[in-house]
């Protein structure tokens, strides 16, 4: 089951990136190349997060599957996971990289990809990377937490109390 957004005006802070590309290949082929063969086209040389050079990018073909890169040394770095797996029409990935380009499973933005057959050998691929406002929200939350009385001040007080307690 997938969640259909209720009809409501988009929040003014909602931010997304939308891209459309026409691929001269059948729908099922386009879906397969985007998922099973992601390592053949993802710009790994410039866009990977592991310490080792990236060898490939992998999307596990099921809802709940992992989305990760594998380095030339065999190491693996998580990018996120598969939220919706509906071949050959639709794919939704959770992009779990925070603003520091580190994997953070408690944080994600969504990448939805739709594959629309416009002919037997022609597919329109519509991509939306949404919830980007969460980056700003997260920064604001962290800032508020660190600035508030309950943040570092409280931690320092706890630390001072603990440090003052005889062992």
């Amino acid at each position, binding site marked *: 089951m997938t969640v259909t957004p209720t009809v409501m005006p988009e929040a003014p802070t909602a931010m997304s990136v939308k891209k459309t590309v026409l691929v001269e290949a059948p729908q099922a*082929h386009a879906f397969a*190349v985007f998922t099973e063969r992601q390592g053949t086209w993802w710009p790994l040389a410039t866009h990977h997060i592991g310490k080792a050079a990236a060898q490939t990018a992998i999307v596990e073909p099921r809802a709940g599957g992992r989305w990760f890169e594998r380095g030339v040394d065999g190491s693996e770095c998580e990018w996120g996971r598969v939220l919706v797996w509906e071949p050959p029409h639709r794919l939704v990935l959770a992009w779990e990289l925070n603003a*520091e380009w580190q994997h953070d499973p408690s944080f994600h933005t969504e990448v939805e990809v739709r594959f629309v057959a416009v002919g037997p*050998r022609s597919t329109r691929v519509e991509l939306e990377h949404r919830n*980007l406002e969460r980056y*700003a929200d997260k*920064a604001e939350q962290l800032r508020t937490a660190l600035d508030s009385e309950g943040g570092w001040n409280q931690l320092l007080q706890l630390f001072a109390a603990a440090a003052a307690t005889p062992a």
Partner: protein
Amino acid sequence: MIEPIHRIAALGDATRREIFGILAGGPSSVAGIASRLPVSRPAVSQHLRVLKDMGLVTHQTVGTRHIYRLDPDGIAALRDYLDSLWERALKDFKAAAERSFTHGKENSQ
């Protein structure tokens, strides 16, 4: 008005992207940023100047310390960065999908 392309360029540098990321986690001084990166303080200051000129970060002086934080509008730069990433990725995806489809047809003929 700073063109998005210039903001992307500012974040095209790996160190500046890391500094931007650190500030996304909360305000910091130059020394605070330098302590988390293998980069000297003068180099951090230099990068911060670029980010500030691009409208990505703002700064205020507290006593003798300069505290930097993300410019609220600067988050738009992250969007610009992802925009350029997907532009590039989809272009490469299209080429790979069309190439492999054409090859598959040739092989089956």
